[in-house]
């Protein structure tokens, strides 16, 4: 880079320079975004394979392929990697990095080198977690005490890796907040910002303010194992449930770190493919902030059967219902945007619509679980597993896939095969529902989660679920092949293939290094579809 003049760097596409080192040392937010995207996708595949193994074990009662301990290790790996290496950094670090500067009309994030450092820290954390696999932990991704204090497996390395990842998450969030505050182009007022930016802003607040609490709880867990400090050990006067409080004080807001960026993606995709202005812009924008605020009040609904006091359980159950309101506001406004739109069912839109449908199921079943009385019965059954996956896959990952197909032409400068993308979507959608819907039923019938085995009466539904996981796997495989093929054989992408009005589509595909030849002056919001020529 250093050899080019400034005028040149503005016109060179960001993908031009080759060589691993030029990537690993680049402070260009778009390159960092691509590195995150590749890293998280790798971990997604690894954790996905472990999920397929888990489902294979559950295909039949009794031992199918792995023993109980290996099963425990596998679901710990699946959970920890999916949560901490894929879905938490996921959309925020990959698409957030790519889109925030482009969408607000800036040349980069506020602290480009800090941004690169965050990525390195992420890699370091990932490396530590992979090393911990030599003696893999079997605690589940929640590390509940006192078991996590006593198990002989390597909890310390795994939790330390997650502690390091937390740093990366905090620094990324900090960078984004400052960027959104200080680097908006002239005329880009708060109420003209794309909704993805509002979503990223809310997410970043959660990253900055919730992550330190899990950092300290994991540090205390490590200190508990090394020094025996006793905070979580009842034998020393400690309180194991205190760990759960600390853990969920982060991990519930973390659920929104995972989902809010996906909601931002949906708010971008829906108006483009309905050719209508987004309905209820301010309601969607402020509901993101509301979720960020309220999500701090509800953490202990994960702990209704942990032996928590009834007073606390009642308070938390009540507070939990509040968080449904801003979520429902969003779903309402998306649906209203669709109404009487000229809907174009391209692959990003298919995933966006799947998001609305599946996330609504995930959210509504969450209301059952938030209700204290119902949760006492459903807690730690497959109902919870199904609910969580409807929110995480049906929500976040559908949003991730929507983003992947929507911004693929911008990021790569190439087009993928739309027909194959639709076929892949059909497999993913059907496979997902066949996998996880039966688990709602299994849960209400009382099948507990986290066991390698089950009584024979649960066999047929489990079999169905395992078959579904294969359909889902095939769908994702086809999608991956299609997107990879596009890189090499795809047609060259035009600047704005989907006729979006947002700023990132007003620069070439792929964008040049410094994004804009001249910083744009913004005079209107980005959702004026159907009125202008667009």
């Amino acid at each position, binding site marked *: 880079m250093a050899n080019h003049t400034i005028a040149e760097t503005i016109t060179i596409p960001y993908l031009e320079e080759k060589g691993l080192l030029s990537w690993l040392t680049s402070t260009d937010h778009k390159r960092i975004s691509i590195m995150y995207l590749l890293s998280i996708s790798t971990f997604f595949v690894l954790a996905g394979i472990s999920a397929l193994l888990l489902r294979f074990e559950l295909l039949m009662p009794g031992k199918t392929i792995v023993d109980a301990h290996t099963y425990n290790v596998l679901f710990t790996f699946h959970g920890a990697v999916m949560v901490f290496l894929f879905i938490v950094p996921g959309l925020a670090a990959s698409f957030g990095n790519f889109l925030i500067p482009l969408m607000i009309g800036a040349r980069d994030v506020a602290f480009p080198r800090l941004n690169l450092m965050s990525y390195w820290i992420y890699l370091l954390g990932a490396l530590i977690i992979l090393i911990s696999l030599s003696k893999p932990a079997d605690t589940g991704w929640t590390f509940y005490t006192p078991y996590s204090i006593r198990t002989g497996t390597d909890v310390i390395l795994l939790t330390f890796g997650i502690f390091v990842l937390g740093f990366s998450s905090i620094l990324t969030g900090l960078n984004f907040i400052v960027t959104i*505050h200080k680097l908006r182009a002239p005329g880009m007022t708060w109420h003209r910002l794309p909704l993805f930016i509002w979503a990223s802003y809310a997410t970043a607040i959660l990253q900055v*303010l919730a992550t330190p*609490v899990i950092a300290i709880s994991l540090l205390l867990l490590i200190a508990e194992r090394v020094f025996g400090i006793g905070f979580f050990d009842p034998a020393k006067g400690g*309180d194991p*449930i*205190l760990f759960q*409080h600390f853990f969920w*004080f982060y991990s519930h807001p973390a659920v929104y770190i995972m989902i809010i960026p996906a909601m931002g993606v949906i708010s971008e995709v829906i108006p483009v493919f309905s050719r209508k202005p987004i309905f209820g812009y301010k309601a969607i924008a402020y509901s993101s902030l509301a979720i960020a605020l309220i999500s*701090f*009040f509800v*953490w*202990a609904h994960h*702990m209704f059967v942990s*032996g*928590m*006091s*009834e*007073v*606390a359980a009642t*308070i*938390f159950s009540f507070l939990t219902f509040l968080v449904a309101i801003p979520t429902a506001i969003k779903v309402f406004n998306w649906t209203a945007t669709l109404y009487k739109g000229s809907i174009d069912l391209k692959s990003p839109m298919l995933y966006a619509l799947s998001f609305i449908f599946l996330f609504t199921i995930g959210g509504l079943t969450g209301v059952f679980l938030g209700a204290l009385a119902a949760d006492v019965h459903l807690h730690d059954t497959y109902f919870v597993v199904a609910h969580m996956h409807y929110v995480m896959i049906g929500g976040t990952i559908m949003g991730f896939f929507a983003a992947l197909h929507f911004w693929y032409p911008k990021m790569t400068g190439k087009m993928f095969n739309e027909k194959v993308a639709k076929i892949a979507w059909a497999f993913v959608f059907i496979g997902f529902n066949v996998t996880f819907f039966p688990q709602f039923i299994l849960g209400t019938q009382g099948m507990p989660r986290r066991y390698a085995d089950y009584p024979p009466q649960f066999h047929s539904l489990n079999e169905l679920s395992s078959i579904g996981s294969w359909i889902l796997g095939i769908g994702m495989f086809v999608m991956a092949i299609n997107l990879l093929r596009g890189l090499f054989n795809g047609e060259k992408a035009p600047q704005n293939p989907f006729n979006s009005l947002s700023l990132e589509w007003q620069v070439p595909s792929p964008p040049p290094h410094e994004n804009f030849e001249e910083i744009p002056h913004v005079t209107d919001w980005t959702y004026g579809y159907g009125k202008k020529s667009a």
Partner: protein
Amino acid sequence: MDTKAHADETINHITPYRIYVLVWVTLMVLTVISVGVSYFHFGIFNIVVALAVASVKASLVALYFMHLKYEDKITWVFALYPLGLLALLIGLSISDVFFRAVVSP
């Protein structure tokens, strides 16, 4: 670099040495007070006084040493919001820890 010089005059406040020394003297006096109070026994009021004095000291450090007094609203929001969250963490944890039914073994 001219813009920077200009910026400093308009956006940045220079606190005179005198003010800092004054704040420091106050902080030292408050420290002596809190140590002194700890030698008397007022029951619950010991901790109330100790925390009140600490909070006054912390506010002085934040307002003057850290220039919070001259910062914009959004900085205030992000400086105070964590304190609200901390109160929430402590308050709601207590709603559990001290209201658990006693289960006889």
